[in-house]
């Protein structure tokens, strides 16, 4: 295979990836205020005036309670843990869920780091999709740093799901 052709395929692949990302945002569906891409992955919805969907806003709140003490404000990363707005550029929804629920560990000569398993923490797990869509919006460059200025009201289904998830706690 000639190098030129190889490069062409690479460019085509990149283009396809771009298309699929944009497609993710254009072909998305809404149900009870919750948005998902064509393949069923949860996603964010931000209107042209900056109003975010409830779940993106909820993700902002939960992230800054549960995650930011290690991963820094706005998913930007810290001296302690990686910036998730970088990680979510490539990490799939499934891998994200796995990492949060089961944790991760890096042990090297210069570095020992450990992401805790949060699988039994309802304050995280009941809002896993929320945190994912918030970080995804940040990773895609669709949402600026800081608290989202405008949001839609909390859907009744979000209240019901919350109660069910906490088991009446």
């Amino acid at each position, binding site marked *: 295979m000639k190098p030129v052709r190889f490069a062409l395929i690479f460019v085509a692949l990149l283009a396809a990836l771009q298309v699929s990302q944009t497609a993710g945002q254009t072909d998305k569906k809404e149900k009870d205020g919750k948005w998902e891409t064509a393949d069923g992955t949860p996603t964010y919805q931000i209107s042209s005036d900056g109003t975010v969907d409830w779940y993106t806003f909820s993700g902002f709140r939960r992230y800054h309670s549960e995650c930011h003490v290690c991963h820094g404000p706005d998913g930007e990363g810290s001296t302690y843990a990686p910036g998730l707005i970088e990680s979510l550029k490539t990490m799939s929804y499934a891998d994200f869920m796995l990492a949060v629920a089961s944790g991760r560990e890096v042990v090297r000569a210069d570095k020992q780091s450990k*992401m805790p398993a*949060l699988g039994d923490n309802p304050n*995280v797990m009941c809002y896993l999709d929320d945190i994912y869509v918030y970080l995804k919006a940040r990773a895609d460059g669709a949402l600026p740093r800081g608290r989202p200025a405008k949001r839609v009201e909390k859907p009744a289904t979000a209240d019901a799901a919350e109660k069910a998830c906490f088991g009446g706690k």
Partner: protein
Amino acid sequence: MHRHTLVGVLLGAAALAVPAQASKDVLDRSGDPNQWVIQTGDYANQRYSKLEQINRDNVKNLKVAWTFSTGVLRGHEGSPLVVGDVMYVHTPFPNIVYALDLKNEGKIIWKYEPKQDPSVIPVMCCDTVYRGLAHADGTIYHHQADTTLVALDAATGKEKWKVVNGDPKKGETNTATVLPVKDKIIVGISGAEFGVRGHVTAYDAKTGKQLWRAYTLGPDSETLFDPEKTMSLGKPVGKDSSLKTWNGDQWKIGGGTAWGWFSYDPETNLFFYGTANPSTWNPVQRAGADGKPIDQKWTMSIIARDVDTGTARWAYQMTPFDEWDFDGVNEMILADIDVKGQKRKALVHFDRNGLGYTLDRVTGELLVAEKYDPAVNWTSGVVMDKNSPQYGRPQVVSKFSTFQTGQDKNTKGVCPAALGSKDQQPAAFSPRTNLFYVPTNHVCMDYEPFRVSYTAGQPYVGATLSMFPAPGSHGGMGNFVAWDAGQGKIAWSKPEQFSVWSGALATAGGVVFYGTLEGYLKAVDEKDGKELFKFKTPSGIIGNVMTYSHGGKQYVAVLSGVGGWAGIGLAAGLTNPTDGLGAVGGYAALRDYTALGGTLTVFTLP
């Protein structure tokens, strides 16, 4: 027999009965300015050195004498110790200890590296920092992240004994140094963000046997508060002073950990420390059965306890019913100073809540409570009228009450931010100027509490917050402040671009030292804060500056290695919510100035 002789004989007998007296060794060695044997410099926590070879005139000539890489990347708090010809350097997790030979160009005499389960890492809120070792009677006392307290032979690094103080699976960890005093080692615990119920514990210095434990919250039998004899604001605390101020069983997961510094007054046999926030950060969830604020004693308090029994002599709660995460753990500096024209045996404390407190350390009487950063706005001040039912209590400004604003609502523009006008980074006191030199944060926040549920070993936070530099000020995130604790007034204040997260050092040479988050070691004039010297070390400084002398030369040493809460909050820079939608992070990001890496830098005159 004269009464004095009798006392002498009794004291002699007591000394015979208790052969190990860490106090004498610590008092002797901390009185010798050539050495630096506990983290706080001395029992009074003054961080003042009588060394004067480096002075205001020659400090500009300071040069790096030698450096040492710790091999660890995490945030480096605390400082090295110097005992005779040996320097002891600690690291954050994995908590390595190095003994370095000062006679042989810092050659490593021994190295101690404990094996710890890495699962302790993520239960340490805000980096795996460690604020350092203590030395007494030929022993190095090392309190690891996983709460193992180990006594090492100072000459060889061999373990003498070890004991486990807490359970990391419940979120109990350690970041603090220990207090070697008399025949005991007194230690604290971290983990208020995990619903840990805080305590201080005394271990036998020779064997590691637990002697007493005093909880911050709970029944009198466990808090070691005496209803009749323990005083607060001039009155006995009464029965169940803690239990009465909690709703139901919440005290069992109520926080109030003790992860700060300890000071000790040999005259009264009291040691002093502060307690952390109540868990969770959502005050609505902690309200009383009637839905009203309730004190949650003895979180957010200054506590004076008897070293031998652990019994509380007095306590003062600074921030009843915390609504902002203003832990009360910062250092308690003991100094005999003039307070409003009267000489007092004072205790001076710069709280996270932004108030500088001066108390009588013998009785716990409140003498001064004033803002040491003018930006502080959550309170209109503390009631000083002894006849008022509100005596000693801070008056909360409704607009900045996260409880009154309510859960699921954003309380805007609270100053200071949760990291406080000052965090653990200790201040220094110079008896030359009678001023306190205070490293501070100049950061405010929006704070939105919401409901969370408790799971053992998992974060139990319940609030989201965004931080920004104090509005309407110099735009920087810190100040280095000289404070008159007798008057409760700022003498001078030097603006800094970032929070000053490094412990200060005052010296008889008239020079005051501190480090900055960009990595500068700075020397300033004790009189007016004029900058006399700065040098950029390899990484941001969150360690404390210390000094010692060896071979007739004075040295100044500091650990760099950015991290901690500062590294988490400021690495990416802050945004200002009032900048509105679309504004890009408008404030300096620490990551544009410095990167990780633990290094010791030692300075001297050429």
